[in-house]
Protein backbone atom coordinates (compact mmCIF):
# COMPACT_ATOMS: atom_id res chain seq x y z
CA UNK A 1 0.00 0.00 0.00
CA UNK A 2 1.29 3.47 -0.83
CA UNK A 3 2.01 6.00 1.88
CA UNK A 4 -0.80 7.93 0.28
CA UNK A 5 -3.27 6.11 2.52
CA UNK A 6 -1.70 7.85 5.51
CA UNK A 7 -1.94 11.33 4.02
CA UNK A 8 -4.26 14.05 5.19
CA UNK A 9 -7.07 14.74 2.76
CA UNK A 10 -6.20 18.44 2.75
CA UNK A 11 -2.72 17.55 1.48
CA UNK A 12 -3.95 15.67 -1.56
CA UNK A 13 -7.19 17.44 -2.46
CA UNK A 14 -7.59 21.13 -3.24
CA UNK A 15 -11.17 21.02 -1.92
CA UNK A 16 -12.04 22.56 1.43
CA UNK A 17 -15.12 22.43 3.66
CA UNK A 18 -17.97 22.52 3.09
CA UNK A 19 -17.10 20.81 -0.19
CA UNK A 20 -14.96 17.87 0.87
CA UNK A 21 -16.69 14.55 0.21
CA UNK A 22 -13.87 12.25 1.24
CA UNK A 23 -13.29 11.56 4.95
CA UNK A 24 -10.22 9.37 4.61
CA UNK A 25 -8.16 7.33 2.19
CA UNK A 26 -8.72 3.68 3.01
CA UNK A 27 -6.43 2.13 0.44
CA UNK A 28 -4.12 3.37 -2.27
CA UNK A 29 -2.04 1.26 -4.56
CA UNK A 30 -0.81 2.36 -7.97
CA UNK A 31 -3.77 3.27 -10.12
CA UNK A 32 -6.43 2.34 -7.57
CA UNK A 33 -7.57 4.46 -4.63
CA UNK A 34 -10.40 3.74 -2.19
CA UNK A 35 -11.82 6.35 0.14
CA UNK A 36 -14.60 6.45 2.68
CA UNK A 37 -17.20 9.08 3.43
CA UNK A 38 -20.09 9.27 5.86
CA UNK A 39 -22.80 11.74 4.94
CA UNK A 40 -23.85 12.78 8.46
CA UNK A 41 -27.54 12.90 9.19
CA UNK A 42 -27.37 16.49 10.46
CA UNK A 43 -26.22 17.89 7.11
CA UNK A 44 -28.42 20.79 6.03
CA UNK A 45 -29.29 19.31 2.64
CA UNK A 46 -31.07 16.29 4.14
CA UNK A 47 -33.84 18.65 5.27
CA UNK A 48 -34.80 19.04 1.64
CA UNK A 49 -33.60 15.77 0.10
CA UNK A 50 -36.17 14.62 1.02
CA UNK A 51 -38.37 15.92 3.88
CA UNK A 52 -38.97 12.98 6.21
CA UNK A 53 -37.10 10.66 3.87
CA UNK A 54 -33.42 11.65 3.83
CA UNK A 55 -31.37 10.16 0.97
CA UNK A 56 -27.83 11.11 -0.08
CA UNK A 57 -28.14 13.16 -3.29
CA UNK A 58 -26.76 11.36 -6.35
CA UNK A 59 -24.74 14.43 -7.30
CA UNK A 60 -22.88 14.19 -4.00
CA UNK A 61 -22.08 10.53 -4.65
CA UNK A 62 -20.70 11.63 -8.03
CA UNK A 63 -18.64 14.35 -6.33
CA UNK A 64 -17.32 11.87 -3.78
CA UNK A 65 -16.26 9.54 -6.60
CA UNK A 66 -14.77 12.49 -8.53
CA UNK A 67 -12.68 13.57 -5.55
CA UNK A 68 -11.49 9.98 -5.13
CA UNK A 69 -10.68 9.94 -8.86
CA UNK A 70 -8.67 13.14 -8.38
CA UNK A 71 -6.57 11.49 -5.69
CA UNK A 72 -5.99 8.44 -7.92
CA UNK A 73 -5.05 10.67 -10.86
CA UNK A 74 -2.61 12.61 -8.70
CA UNK A 75 -1.09 9.35 -7.47
CA UNK A 76 -0.58 8.16 -11.05
CA UNK A 77 0.92 11.36 -12.48
CA UNK A 78 3.34 11.61 -9.55
CA UNK A 79 4.29 7.93 -9.71
CA UNK A 80 2.93 7.30 -6.24
CA UNK A 81 5.34 9.83 -4.70
CA UNK A 82 2.78 12.47 -4.07
CA UNK A 83 4.02 15.39 -2.06
CA UNK A 84 2.01 18.27 -0.77
CA UNK A 85 3.80 20.81 -2.88
CA UNK A 86 3.07 18.76 -6.01
CA UNK A 87 -0.67 18.77 -5.44
CA UNK A 88 -2.42 19.43 -8.71
CA UNK A 89 -5.96 20.47 -9.39
CA UNK A 90 -8.03 18.26 -11.63
CA UNK A 91 -11.26 19.49 -13.15
CA UNK A 92 -14.13 17.15 -13.85
CA UNK A 93 -14.45 17.17 -17.63
CA UNK A 94 -16.78 14.31 -18.46
CA UNK A 95 -19.06 11.94 -16.57
CA UNK A 96 -20.52 9.00 -18.46
CA UNK A 97 -22.45 5.79 -17.91
CA UNK A 98 -23.33 6.64 -14.33
CA UNK A 99 -25.80 4.32 -12.65
CA UNK A 100 -27.28 4.68 -9.20
CA UNK A 101 -28.22 1.19 -8.17
CA UNK A 102 -29.41 1.70 -4.60
CA UNK A 103 -30.29 4.67 -2.38
CA UNK A 104 -27.73 5.73 0.21
CA UNK A 105 -28.97 6.88 3.61
CA UNK A 106 -27.48 9.30 6.16
CA UNK A 107 -24.71 7.91 8.38
CA UNK A 108 -23.95 4.98 6.06
CA UNK A 109 -20.28 4.59 5.22
CA UNK A 110 -19.75 4.99 1.47
CA UNK A 111 -16.58 3.44 0.06
CA UNK A 112 -15.61 5.02 -3.27
CA UNK A 113 -13.03 3.34 -5.48
CA UNK A 114 -11.36 4.98 -8.47
CA UNK A 115 -9.21 3.13 -10.97
CA UNK A 116 -7.19 5.07 -13.51
CA UNK A 117 -7.62 3.48 -16.94
CA UNK A 118 -5.57 5.81 -19.08
CA UNK A 119 -3.59 9.00 -18.79
CA UNK A 120 -3.00 11.00 -21.96
CA UNK A 121 -1.67 14.54 -22.08
CA UNK A 122 -3.40 16.42 -19.30
CA UNK A 123 -6.42 14.09 -19.38
CA UNK A 124 -7.07 11.07 -17.17
CA UNK A 125 -9.82 8.50 -17.64
CA UNK A 126 -11.06 6.82 -14.48
CA UNK A 127 -13.55 4.06 -13.67
CA UNK A 128 -15.38 4.76 -10.42
CA UNK A 129 -17.73 2.91 -8.12
CA UNK A 130 -19.21 3.38 -4.67
CA UNK A 131 -20.21 0.67 -2.25
CA UNK A 132 -22.16 0.54 0.98
CA UNK A 133 -21.74 -2.60 3.09
CA UNK A 134 -20.09 -4.33 0.13
CA UNK A 135 -22.90 -3.61 -2.33
CA UNK A 136 -22.45 -1.30 -5.31
CA UNK A 137 -24.64 1.80 -4.94
CA UNK A 138 -23.22 3.81 -7.87
CA UNK A 139 -20.73 3.41 -10.68
CA UNK A 140 -19.58 5.20 -13.79
CA UNK A 141 -16.72 6.63 -15.81
CA UNK A 142 -15.06 10.03 -15.56
CA UNK A 143 -12.50 12.09 -17.39
CA UNK A 144 -10.50 14.60 -15.39
CA UNK A 145 -8.30 17.32 -16.83
CA UNK A 146 -5.30 18.57 -15.00
CA UNK A 147 -5.47 22.31 -14.58
CA UNK A 148 -2.55 24.12 -16.16
CA UNK A 149 -1.32 26.71 -13.68
Amino acid at each position, binding site marked *: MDNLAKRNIADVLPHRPPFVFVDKIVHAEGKVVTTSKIFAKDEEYFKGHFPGNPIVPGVLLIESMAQTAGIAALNVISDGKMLEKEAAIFYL*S*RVTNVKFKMPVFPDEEVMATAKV*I*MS*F*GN*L*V*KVFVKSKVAGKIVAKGEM*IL*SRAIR
Partner: protein
Amino acid sequence: MGQEKERELYERVKTMLVKDLRLKIAPEDIKNTDLIFDGGLGLDSIDALELVVAMEKRFKVRIPDATVGAKVLVSVDSIVRFIKEKQQKNG
Protein backbone atom coordinates in the same frame (compact mmCIF):
# COMPACT_ATOMS: atom_id res chain seq x y z
CA MET B 1 -1.45 -6.12 -46.01
CA GLY B 2 -3.85 -7.15 -48.79
CA GLN B 3 -6.47 -4.80 -50.21
CA GLU B 4 -9.31 -6.77 -48.63
CA LYS B 5 -7.71 -6.68 -45.17
CA GLU B 6 -6.94 -2.98 -45.51
CA ARG B 7 -10.55 -2.22 -46.47
CA GLU B 8 -11.68 -4.21 -43.43
CA LEU B 9 -9.30 -2.21 -41.21
CA TYR B 10 -10.75 1.07 -42.51
CA GLU B 11 -14.25 -0.21 -41.71
CA ARG B 12 -13.24 -1.26 -38.20
CA VAL B 13 -11.68 2.14 -37.49
CA LYS B 14 -14.81 3.95 -38.69
CA THR B 15 -17.02 1.65 -36.62
CA MET B 16 -14.83 2.38 -33.59
CA LEU B 17 -15.23 6.12 -34.12
CA VAL B 18 -19.01 5.84 -34.35
CA LYS B 19 -19.55 3.39 -31.50
CA ASP B 20 -16.94 4.42 -28.93
CA LEU B 21 -17.30 8.15 -29.52
CA ARG B 22 -21.07 8.01 -29.94
CA LEU B 23 -21.12 9.78 -33.30
CA LYS B 24 -24.54 10.38 -34.81
CA ILE B 25 -23.50 9.28 -38.28
CA ALA B 26 -23.07 5.94 -40.03
CA PRO B 27 -19.53 4.54 -40.38
CA GLU B 28 -19.88 4.53 -44.19
CA ASP B 29 -20.55 8.28 -44.15
CA ILE B 30 -17.07 8.99 -42.77
CA LYS B 31 -14.49 9.74 -45.45
CA ASN B 32 -10.94 8.48 -44.99
CA THR B 33 -9.64 12.03 -45.11
CA ASP B 34 -12.25 13.66 -42.82
CA LEU B 35 -10.60 15.54 -39.98
CA ILE B 36 -11.39 13.93 -36.63
CA PHE B 37 -10.99 17.17 -34.68
CA ASP B 38 -10.91 20.80 -35.74
CA GLY B 39 -14.54 20.77 -36.76
CA GLY B 40 -14.35 17.67 -38.97
CA LEU B 41 -16.29 14.99 -37.10
CA GLY B 42 -17.12 17.42 -34.31
CA LEU B 43 -14.95 15.76 -31.68
CA ASP B 44 -13.00 17.64 -29.02
CA SER B 45 -9.83 17.18 -27.00
CA ILE B 46 -11.63 15.14 -24.33
CA ASP B 47 -12.70 12.71 -27.06
CA ALA B 48 -9.01 12.26 -27.91
CA LEU B 49 -8.56 10.36 -24.66
CA GLU B 50 -11.62 8.20 -25.40
CA LEU B 51 -10.12 7.49 -28.82
CA VAL B 52 -6.76 6.47 -27.33
CA VAL B 53 -8.58 4.10 -24.94
CA ALA B 54 -10.69 2.68 -27.81
CA MET B 55 -7.65 2.07 -30.02
CA GLU B 56 -5.91 0.17 -27.26
CA LYS B 57 -9.03 -1.89 -26.52
CA ARG B 58 -9.92 -2.73 -30.12
CA PHE B 59 -6.53 -2.82 -31.87
CA LYS B 60 -4.06 -3.36 -29.01
CA VAL B 61 -2.05 -0.34 -30.07
CA ARG B 62 -0.99 2.37 -27.67
CA ILE B 63 -0.46 6.01 -28.50
CA PRO B 64 2.33 6.85 -26.05
CA ASP B 65 1.88 10.60 -25.66
CA ALA B 66 0.16 13.72 -26.91
CA THR B 67 2.93 14.48 -29.42
CA VAL B 68 2.38 11.18 -31.23
CA GLY B 69 -1.35 11.63 -30.74
CA ALA B 70 -1.27 14.96 -32.58
CA LYS B 71 0.17 13.18 -35.63
CA VAL B 72 -1.99 10.06 -35.47
CA LEU B 73 -5.40 11.36 -34.43
CA VAL B 74 -5.90 13.45 -37.55
CA SER B 75 -8.03 11.35 -39.90
CA VAL B 76 -9.09 7.76 -40.53
CA ASP B 77 -6.18 7.53 -42.97
CA SER B 78 -3.61 8.49 -40.32
CA ILE B 79 -5.12 6.17 -37.71
CA VAL B 80 -5.11 3.22 -40.13
CA ARG B 81 -1.51 4.01 -41.09
CA PHE B 82 -0.47 3.99 -37.40
CA ILE B 83 -2.28 0.72 -36.65
CA LYS B 84 -0.71 -0.95 -39.68
CA GLU B 85 2.78 0.20 -38.67
CA LYS B 86 2.31 -1.01 -35.10
CA GLN B 87 0.84 -4.33 -36.14
CA GLN B 88 3.66 -4.95 -38.62
CA LYS B 89 6.24 -4.17 -35.91
CA ASN B 90 4.51 -6.55 -33.52
CA GLY B 91 4.43 -9.23 -36.23
